[in-house]
Structures are given as C-alpha cells and as structure tokens.
C-alpha cells in the first residue's frame, strides 16, 4: 500500500504508475476524484492493453511515474 494520490490534481500528459505494474498517460481528467481517462504505455500483466485508452480507477493509481 502507498499513500493515496490526489488524482484530481493530475494534469493531462502526466504518467501514472498503477498497482498491477502498468504505466498510463492521462488523456483527460474529469476531476471527480474517482476516475482518470488514460492511455496504457506499459502493461506487463496484459500487454494487449498497451495503446488502449481506458478509465483508470483512483484506487489503482499508486504514484506518478
């Protein structure tokens, strides 16, 4: 576990590290404190996700990459 990241403060373009080891780049931030829209750059557990844009749950974000 790590301290929670205030994802509302993260701007588009920021790269975030996820709990499953993936790294994603923020595309847009609805600023609801729950979700980010981000594109996967690395996804060691599921390489098929790389390049895809997904909604990233705040609890999955462990830090800024």
């Amino acid at each position, binding site marked *: 576990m790590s301290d929670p990241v205030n994802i509302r403060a993260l701007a588009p373009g920021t790269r975030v590290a996820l709990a499953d080891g993936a790294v994603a780049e923020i595309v*847009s931030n*609805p600023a*609801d404190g*729950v*979700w980010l*829209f981000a594109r996967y750059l690395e996804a060691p557990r599921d390489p098929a996700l790389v390049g895809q844009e997904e*909604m990233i*749950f705040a609890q999955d974000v462990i830090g800024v990459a």
Partner: protein
Amino acid sequence: MSAAYRPGLVDLATGQVSREIFVNEEIYAEEQEKIFARAWLFVGHESQIPNPGDYVVSCMGEESVILCRDRTGQIHVFLNSCRHRGMKVCRYDEGNAAVFTCPYHGWSYGTDGRLVGVPYFREAYHSRLDRTQWGLVEVAQLCNYKGAIWATWDTEAPPFAEYLGEFTRYLDLQLDGWDGREGQAEVLCGVQKWLVPCNWKFPAENFSGDTYHNISHRSVDLAGIGPSGASRRDLGERNVSRKLHVCMPDRGHQTIHYILPKGELPPPAYQNAPIVAEYFRHCEEEKRRRLGDMARLVGAPGEIFPNTALLSRQPRTMAAWHPRGSHQTECWRWFFVDKDAPSEVKNFLRDYYIRYSGPAGMTEQDDMENWNYAHAASRGTIARRYPYNYEQGAGTAVANYEYQGLRVPGEVIDITDVQSSEQPARNFYRRWAEFMAADSWDRLATWRQAQPQAAE
C-alpha cells in the same frame, strides 16, 4: 369515474372534496404510483443546458432526475440513482460533466447514461458484468416542446402533444416570443426553490385559476405590485377584455385567460420604463401581424395536470409543485424572457419577477401563508371530517364559447361579470380522481374513444 376511487373523496355532484386527499399519507403514497409515475411532468428548459455535457438536477415527483445534454447534443432525463446501491450520482444543482460518478463505490456513467466505469471490472467482476444492462434508468418518454423539457416514466402514456390536447395554445403563450415567433423563451437566471408546509395540491389548485382569493393580495395591489409600480399586474387587460375560466375536462388542464376585443392592443403596463414600454409596444404589433386574431389571447395563471403552473403574462414564469410527503411541497419556479430581448428589458423584468413571485415575491408570500395554514388546520382528527366546498359556478360552464369571432376550446365560464368560479378546481380534482381510479391509459385517454372511427 371519480366514484370508483374511494367514493365520497371527490364528489363533483355536490361540489365537495374531502380533506383526506390532502392530509392522508396512504393516499399520498398512492398518488406517487398513480399520478407521478404516469403523468407527463415538466423537468426544465433546454436553455439551462446549452452545451454538450451540461446538466441540471431536477425532480419528477419525489424522484431526483438529471436533465443533461450528452456529447452529441442529445437531451436526456435520467433517474439520479446509481444502479449498484442507489446513491445519487450527481449531487450538484448544475454544471458540466464528462461522466456522473457515484461517490459510494465508483460506478460511473456517461452523459448518455451508459455505464462506462466499474471499479475492478476485470479483477473483481472477472469482466463478466454486462455493463450494457446497468446504465442509468432513463425516462420512458421525453418531449422537447419549444425548448421546454417534459418527461414521463410511463411507456403507455400518450405523446405529450396528445396529453396537452387543445391546451397547447396556452403553453404556447408561455414559450413563444412576445412578438409571436415560435419558441423564443430562455430561463432568466436560476431556478428558485423553496419548501412550503402544505400538500402539493394546494398550489396546484390555486394556480388552476383561483380568482376568488384575490382579497389575499389586496395589500400588494394597494402597494402597487404592477410592473409600472401601480395597482394589480393585470389591471390593464382586466378593464378591456373578457376574462375566462377555461377547462379541458378530459385532460385536467385549466387556466384563466383574457380575450381582447377585436382590434384592441393590451393597455400599456410599463409606463415608468420607456425602453421596456417601447419594446413591448413593438412586440405586440409584431404579434398581431404574425398571429392575427390569436394575438388577442392574453395568458394568466393556469395548470397543466398534475403539478405544472403557467403564468405567461407578466411575471412570465412556470412552477412545479414537487411532493415531499403529504404535508410538504418543494416549489420550483422558472422565470422566462425572450432570449433576444434587450438587456434593459431583461434587467427590468428580473427585478419585477423577484418582486412579485417566488419565496421573496410579495404576491407569492400571500399564497404561501394561505396554503401553509389551510393545510395545518385541516390535519386534525376533527378537521378532516369536514369536506371543502367547491360549489361556486357549478353548472354554468359552456362549450363552444366564442367572443367576437374567436372560439375557445374546452368548457368555459366567462367570469368578466361574475368575478369567479370554481370550475378550474373541480376540473383538476375530477382528473385527479380519474388518475387515482384508472388502472390503464385506456381509461384515462377517453378522448380516443370519442373520436369517430375511420371508415372501413
């Protein structure tokens, strides 16, 4: 048909209505299912959500709903309740959003209602949840009528235009431009919202066309509540027009309105504001040119069943009476102007509207006092044994009313000389009893049975 619903509660033959329908909590609960889950309800106006992603939170009966414009510009009305555990997914009055996210567990919905975000969808749900089945609950039918957004939860309800019938012309007075152009209205500023400790039917009945309670407003008339700062707001048209009560007996809609004599323009009402006076003089001329004889109609308080009040003549405003238990009503009031009216006109009217209507308006404060204490004094065990009296003007309504070549639809009582009738209230409670008794729209849409069958 009213006799089928708990006989004696609404007795139109004797003009009596039981106090139970205002104070009885079982009846209130039944109203939510039989009236508010079936009728067309006013939700808001498109000018409140001009851009993609814009939303306002509104109400349909007791239900919180989101009126929003999705990314493609389409307007939706959704139940404001997460499909997972029911939490409100939107807790702001208005704004712009890409998604509506439930703060409880994080389910997230697009502005088109689709479920787009489910936390741990792959991990905890193993990607098996069918997200297409768990979007926000959307109303069964929505109608954008000249910018006003109406909705119903009932798939079987007739289309909105049919629900209105010939009452359309009175809603048009509200939404069309002062110069007669179609659908020029926009909401001025925000929606005023306040609570009154009374049953929702008190304001609904009052706005159906109660002219008998004008004594309540005598003090504000003496103080000069009219737009020119003198007398009543409608003194001008009252002095030259026929004043009518008009009821749609098969729909439950009713209104007061005036008909000007042929060739007569409404008397000036803005003598103390030359720019405003000149604007309205020009608009009246244009309206007469565009609409001809129909421009002789002048709007006044009315009610679209069940809980939407109209007032198209100044102050130009609509209200919804949202039920909040049998003993409380949440009043919402929208104020309208023509969107391309000069700023001087909008500013003048904003001040006038606030002075007249809403929780700070002098005239509406009079009404609230009446509804508040009438309700409180009707709740007791003894009080509720005694029905209210609605006999006034019974049996005097006529069909096919006409004044100087202008025919008026529905049942009409000309109250120019008699001052008042309770036909609008009787019409409202007749429809109320029909909704409470009917188990389907086959019994409510009686006008369909009256239409002649097409030849085989």
